[in-house]
């Protein structure tokens, strides 16, 4: 009987201890906890420093996607109208964000590191149509020293589709 009361009091001690500890809550909309480096959030289509798109329209991401959430339609590059190095570029690049499960397979499969899962996780939509991200929404801004695509370039410079890359961290 006496022990029982001691045990009950012990439990109450634990809750009281927490009462005087600061709460662990992160006040979300005002304070955002930074996500980890590898976090897989909303995708972005990257560009090279000169403004050319990294995506070469190979559709490997679409093939690797377990949810079939990516749709790519490629078109031919020319030196007058060059979007990306190599032969082809993605004319249409769409991701259905409500199908995407953020597994990162597309990022692994991409041979040019064009598609990268970045750190934005705030994906709320009022309707399903707006969850389909087109290429304009996915692609990053042209870097400071770059030119917007399509570019007119000298022939024979950008033949190589797959660049030299480092292993990801």
């Amino acid at each position: 009987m006496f022990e029982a009361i001691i045990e009950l009091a012990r439990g109450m001690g634990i809750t009281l201890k927490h009462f005087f500890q600061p709460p662990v809550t992160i006040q979300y909309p005002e304070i955002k906890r930074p996500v980890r480096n590898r976090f897989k959030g909303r995708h972005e289509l990257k560009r090279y420093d000169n403004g050319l798109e990294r995506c070469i329209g190979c559709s490997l991401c679409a093939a690797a996607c377990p949810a079939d959430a990516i749709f790519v339609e490629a078109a031919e590059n020319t030196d007058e109208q060059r979007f990306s190095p190599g032969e082809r570029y993605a004319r249409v690049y769409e991701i259905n964000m409500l199908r995407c499960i953020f597994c990162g397979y597309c990022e692994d499969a991409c041979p040019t590191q064009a598609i990268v899962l970045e750190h934005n996780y705030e994906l709320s939509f009022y309707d399903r149509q707006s969850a389909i991200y087109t290429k304009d929404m996915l692609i990053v801004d042209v870097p400071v020293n770059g030119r917007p695509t399509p570019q007119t370039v000298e022939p024979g410079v950008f033949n190589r589709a797959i660049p030299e890359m480092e292993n990801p961290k």
Partner: protein
Amino acid sequence: MTIGQIALWGLVVGFIMSMVVITGFAYTTLLERKVLARMQARVGPNRAGYIPFPTRTGREKKLLAGFMQPAADAVKLFFKEDPTPAKADWLVYNLAPMLAVIPAILILAVIPWAGKIPGLVPEQYNYFAIVPGLNVAVLFILAVTSISVYGVVLAGWASNSKYAVLGGIRASAQMISYELAMSLSVLIPVMLANSMDMGVIVEAQKGHWYVFLQPVAAIIFSIAALAELQRAPFDLLEAEQELSAGFNVEYAGMRFGMFFMAEYMKMISLSAIAATLFFGGYRGPFVDQIPVLGFVYLFLKIFIGLFLMIWIRATFPRLRYDQLMLFGWKVLLPVSVINFMIVAVFIVLAAEGVFAPIANFFGF
């Protein structure tokens, strides 16, 4: 003062006090949410309403963040559709929430809030209450608290839902079991003070609270009061994990809000009663010189009572139905009967002068 004047005075005071307690009820919900949150390492409601307070850094500080939360709840509940289930008993279904709320308010009538405040209390009475000087106040409390069980039972029955019926049945069984222990423990201050008038009981505790004289009765009363209130760990009738929401499962909108209201108002009033019967009521240091302090002391004691209830809720698991009944009938009731008899014998013997030295010591 004439009878009529006293009645009018009672009405006015009653209205004011009810309003105070209804506001108090709203903030008790907030208190519960906040304290629970802090005990669980959270923050609790802090978005609805705040007082902006400019700081030197430019970013304004939010004082009392969340203090409008009860208002938001109320507004939402008022503007919520309030359907009556098709197969429910319409009259009883709508009557039940009122039956739950009215007794909770009625109990307030006999609680002495403060001592004799000149100019506020009619001169023939010694303390400030809505109905001062009621010489059966304790009986009144017992009677009224047992009415409130009807609200719950009828709500459970009228909803025509199995969970609600189970909740209602549990409620009636629980109330009956704990009513006895509670009554017996309430009688002990009555016997000690030799009066059923709440004000007399408070005055009799001058210098020695009954909790020190009779800790057993005080503990039994607190446990039984928790059970009467259907608070954790005795909240079987709305046991979320077993019966979804128990008796109020079919209630929506403000009718559901009324059950909420009843529960929290009873929390306040039973804290007040416990404070009055065992913890010296409105009494405290300097209360004789400055009678208004009585309000402060009583509110403080009520607050401590509420905090304890919330604390218990944050910590303990819930009892099982049979364990609850066993505890009520096999532990609380015998203990309170024996305690009652011992106290009775002691009082008689003391009156006979057998324990005169001891009795003098305790101030009988």
